């Protein structure tokens, strides 16, 4: 069974539908997959309520309340999750999916953060850094956790 002839009409309609949907306003870099308690996302000086499924953009700052936690999957398969009373800034994110080259700098201003690094860190050591007020972590892969207080 070749799937192509059967799918061709659907392929055409799906392609047409996509043509209409394509113009993306901002580059999505990741998505909130897990969320508990109070979570806000600061974007362009606006505070947005966080929600499961929300797409994230470069420069977003995630904040969790005393009862809050949030888990994010980035487009390079990095997983970042912050515990309560945390501030996590996604300061710089560039990822070319075709070449796997990229750059990811995040800052944990306070709180706790667990990380599983993804394709960016795998392609080049130190292409991913996590900063805290006290230190800079050069990620060579892959799983670690960090706290920060100022």
């Amino acid at each position, binding site marked *: 069974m*070749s*799937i*192509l002839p059967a*799918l061709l009409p*659907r*392929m055409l309609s*799906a*392609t047409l*539908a*996509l043509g209409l*949907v394509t113009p993306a306003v901002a580059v999505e870099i990741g*998505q*909130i*997959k*897990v*969320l*508990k308690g109070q979570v806000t996302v600061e974007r362009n000086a606006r505070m947005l309520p966080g929600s*499961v*499924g929300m797409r994230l953009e470069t420069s977003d700052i995630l904040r969790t309340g005393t009862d809050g*936690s*949030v*888990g*994010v*999957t980035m*487009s390079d*398969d990095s*997983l970042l*999750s*912050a*515990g*309560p009373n*945390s501030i996590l800034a996604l300061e710089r994110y560039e990822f070319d*999916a*075709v*070449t*796997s080259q990229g750059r990811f700098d995040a800052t944990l201003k306070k709180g*706790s*953060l*667990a990380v*599983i690094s993804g394709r960016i860190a795998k392609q080049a050591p*130190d292409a991913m850094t996590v900063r*805290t*007020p*006290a*230190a*800079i*972590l*050069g*990620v*060579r*892969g*892959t*799983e*670690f*956790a*960090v*706290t*920060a*207080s*100022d």
Partner: protein
Amino acid sequence: MIRAWHAFVRWRLIVALAVLAGACSTGTVVLLPEKDGHDTALLVKQGDQELLLNRPYAAAKQTPFGPQGYRSSPEEVDTVFGAALAAQPMRPTQFTFYFIEGRDEFTDASKQIVDGVFAEIARRPVPDVLVIGHTDAVGTDQINDALSRQRAETVRVALIAHGIAPENITAIGRGKRDPVVPTADGVAEPRNRRVEIVVR
């Protein structure tokens, strides 16, 4: 003149306080064990001091005197990072489809994998799917980039036809950049003609 001197002293004081505040920032970092036992490492930099963590539970506290290494434990990780780890998203799951040489049709064995993909999608509250096409090393980059992209498109369209929302699927072609089995250029290798589906 005196006013300028005062301004200078005050400025020095502010800088000194800022440096002190920076030095007083604290934190802990722990390298966690890898699920699959791969090598792992993290370079901790504090000012001009560096400490390399490269074993499970290798850890560093940031002190005013620089990073101080110590050995953490599962208990400490659970206490300090339990909430953050509990919020960790499900790990991406990867499936691989194989293609008939130079074409964008699936092999028979690959069709059975579709069920697995959909089962994985069903497990996740907000699934998104990345479809990555690959080729073997026969042909130019230009041809392989186009072919790998076309393979990924075929799979993307098939998944949309099966009910996955188009905005949750991204298809890319990586050409011959990422072979499973490294070969010399121009070598036909069926195991490299594939599409990976990452459900995350």
